[in-house]
């Protein structure tokens, strides 16, 4: 069975600085999807960035980028130029590409605090 591990329950970053959130996963599959979701306080989870395992190039969305290391099964999220609005819970998630399954497997989350 697949598992997702986020080893940092909480992280802090100064406004305008860069922070990296860690995520590792375990799977025997060769093709899958990886995601980072952001959950602001009392708000719904929103998709930050996604990565297809067959793509070697790391995904980037504006200030958010990932470091996808398939062999190491690592999928970290880098937030550059951190803003106060980035403060949230961040969840790493895995989804198999096998047909017939739609579920995400989430990590326990990392709470990011942004310090002014």
């Amino acid at each position: 069975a697949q598992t997702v591990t986020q080893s940092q329950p909480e992280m802090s970053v100064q406004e305008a600085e860069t922070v990296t959130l860690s995520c590792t996963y375990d799977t025997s599959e060769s093709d899958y999807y990886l995601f980072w979701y952001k959950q602001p306080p009392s708000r719904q989870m929103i998709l930050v960035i996604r990565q297809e395992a067959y793509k070697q190039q790391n995904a980037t969305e504006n200030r958010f980028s990932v470091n996808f290391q398939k062999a190491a099964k690592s999928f970290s999220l880098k937030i550059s130029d951190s803003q106060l609005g980035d403060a949230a819970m961040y969840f790493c998630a895995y989804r198999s590409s096998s047909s017939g399954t739609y579920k995400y497997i989430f990590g326990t989350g990392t709470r990011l605090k942004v310090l002014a």
Partner: protein
Amino acid sequence: EPEVTQTPSHQVTQMGQEVILRCVPISNHLYFYWYRQILGQKVEFLVSFYNNEISEKSEIFDDQFSVERPDGSNFTLKIRSTKLEDSAMYFCASSEFNTDLYGYTFGSGTRLTVV
């Protein structure tokens, strides 16, 4: 921006009581999901629903749980006889396709407290 709406935001119920959690997915979405998060633990998959039937469920989703889409707009999760360990945040989500081009759209969640 279309949203997935969940009601109520917080529900307190007595152990053994039935509870229904409601969700209104995005109107053109075809796939619907329930997840839950026990405080301090990871978000766990419960069930996915497509074409008016369950397409996948986890081992958490036992006979005490059921889902339905009663009127083409609402998507409900029913817990027949709540237990203390059902206390959790329940998230509804929907997606247009079963691929992940844009990921799911999640609701804000219902915090269920069983006392």
